[in-house]
């Protein structure tokens, strides 16, 4: 056991001594996480799909702000030309200066709904109709809150805090909606972080694993190890341990960056996510070792590692969500271990599942690990 730990620890030391390794281990993958997140992210404007309404709040009291909040809850985005220059609202709403005063005096007050000069207005514009409907619902809701307040406290004066409390209260009847039959599509960092993690774990462990074994074969390092009081299996597991340590270093870096830099929630299912990545690292490390035992030339090892890792990553859903590809492609994709790793990670990060829901992908990955590990041991060559 001591020999295994020593071989692995020193292998890791050798890899981490090379400063350029950090570029491939961390800098490039994290840059990819950032940039590729844009490809699966909706445009900035589309992220708030509510129709814009230009609001001129002239009210000197607190009621105008309440109306704007209720507008938002009713599906209208209140914008101003200063804060939202690109919103292009077609309609505007003016809240008069004495709005609060007149409401508090229980007098009638009118909100002005107007057309914005220069913006073409189509009477059949669905968005305009939506805004009008939501504005109407806003007014009704606002009056409803006033009525509820009056019912609750009688003739006591209306306060902002009391009204806000009413607005924040849970509705007695609510509609809880969720996706039926089809899963939501992971987007943004929720897509790019697991995809790039899986791809670079595979690629780096294939390259560093294959290359370190091939180098040790060329330099005589493996021959020298073979004449020490250790057997071939201890050498294989020592090398595997070193690569798993490298995997742990990468996984830790990616998860920390994911949680704190990209704000992806990995903390809730940290154990299950780390377990998925560790089993996947086992598959990748064993495959890397196998390449190193079969091929001695460094250039060929690196070339083959890239030729294997990129197609497996693309096929396995690291570049685009599996949810957007046809069913047949999805079935074929599961030849790649990346697909099983991605299944598990999406379940844990995006779909809110727990460890009990990812037993199948983890078991398949473990089977891949076992087979590649046995092959690596079988093809052990000095």
């Amino acid at each position: 056991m001591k020999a295994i730990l020593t071989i692995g620890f020193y292998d890791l030391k050798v890899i981490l001594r090379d400063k350029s390794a950090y570029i491939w281990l961390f800098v490039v993958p994290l840059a990819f996480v950032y940039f590729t997140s844009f490809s699966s992210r909706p445009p900035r404007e589309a992220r708030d799909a509510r129709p814009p309404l230009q609001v001129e709040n002239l009210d000197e009291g607190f009621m105008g702000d309440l109306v704007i909040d209720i507008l938002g809850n009713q599906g209208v985005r209140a914008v101003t030309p200063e804060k939202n220059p690109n919103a292009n609202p077609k309609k505007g709403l003016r809240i008069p200066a004495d709005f609060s005063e007149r409401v508090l005096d229980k007098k009638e007050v009118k909100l002005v709904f107007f057309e914005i000069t220069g913006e073409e207005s189509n009477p059949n514009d669905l968005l305009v109709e939506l805004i009008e409907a939501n504005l109407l619902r806003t007014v009704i809701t606002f009056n409803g809150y006033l009525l509820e307040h009056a019912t609750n406290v009688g003739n006591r004066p209306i306060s902002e805090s009391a009204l806000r409390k009413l607005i924040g209260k849970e509705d007695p009847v609510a509609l809880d909606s969720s996706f039926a039959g089809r899963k939501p599509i992971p987007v943004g960092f929720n897509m790019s972080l697991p995809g790039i993690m899986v791809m670079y774990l595979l690629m780096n462990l294939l390259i560093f694993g294959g290359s370190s074994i091939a180098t040790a074969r060329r330099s005589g390092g493996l021959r020298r190890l073979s004449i020490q009081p250790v057997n071939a299996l201890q050498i294989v597991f020592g090398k595997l341990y070193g690569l798993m340590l490298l995997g742990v270093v990468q996984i830790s870096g990616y998860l920390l960056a994911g949680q704190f830099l990209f704000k992806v929630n990995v903390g809730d299912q940290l154990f299950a996510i780390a377990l998925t990545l560790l089993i996947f690292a086992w598959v990748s490390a064993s495959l890397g070792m196998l390449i190193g035992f079969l091929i001695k030339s460094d250039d060929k090892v690196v070339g083959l590692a890239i030729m294997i890792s990129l197609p497996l990553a693309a096929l396995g859903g690291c570049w685009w969500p599996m949810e957007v590809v046809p069913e047949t492609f999805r079935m074929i994709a599961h030849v790649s271990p990346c697909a099983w790793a991605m299944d598990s990670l999406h379940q844990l990060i995006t779909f809110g599942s727990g460890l009990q829901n990812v037993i199948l992908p983890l078991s398949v990955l473990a089977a891949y690990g076992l087979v590649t590990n046995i092959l690596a041991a079988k093809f052990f060559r000095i």
Partner: protein
Amino acid sequence: MNATPLLETHRLSKRYGDLRAVDEVSFEVRPGEIYGLLGPNGAGKTTSISLACGLLKPDSGKISVGGLDFWNNPKAARRKMGVVPQELALYEELSGRENLEFWGRVAGLSSRDSKTRATELLEALTLTERAKDVVKKYSGGMKRRINLGCALMHRPSLIMLDEPTVGIDPQARANILEFIKKMVEDGVGILYTTHYLEEAEDLCDRIGIIDHGKILAEGTLDELRGQMGDEQLFVIEGGFANQDPEQWPGFLDEFKVVQKKDKQMVVSASQEGDPADYLKKLLAVPVQLENVTLKRPSLNDTFLKLTGRDLRE
């Protein structure tokens, strides 16, 4: 005194296809001696050492380490031996000290023991000042010394050195040879392969001359020289390219041809006699001679006699 040999090989053979790389090689290394395997490149030295240390399995034959059959308990046998391979099998990105500690730990030393032993060896190998430098910044001689040190970490009683001075300058070679001589004083046994005649003459207590996978002769330096008997060797220089000594009248009755090259021949006198008489007979050969020299047989001449070729070829 018949101490159990530290290493004993008995009729070891190894074939690669039709090539007999090692052919029934037997030798032993005793405590406190340096046994040299001397032969040209490709003679079978490295294959022999690879078989002796268990890196290769022989097709036939037996290896005993400290009296125990190697392949019955290879781990126990390997604990007793330290092998210095011809190649520099080092972690170039790690320091000299880290390399020593790594091989010490793989050989079974504790962390503390490997640190202590590394300090001792760095001092003995005069590398203390460069201990923290990465190996890739070392000179060839320094790398060779660390390569040697890595095999000595666990204090083996049997050390196998496969051409440990290849490719280094004379000063670095002298340092390594000096270090090896000191090790023998502590009672370890050394198997040393080389194709440098001077190293074998200077270092080895007993020498096995190997060529084409076979041990042709074995013994101490004096014993090997003695194989030439009291023969007188004559080196004659001239143009021999198109000459056949068999055609020279009576020549082969008086001389044996040890080696014939285009411009040089080495011959020995068939019988004892006055060297001056032989010199006269040589000068009478039907070739224009440029020089004739009488010399005492050396180890190289023994090699020449046994193989018909020069060790340096």
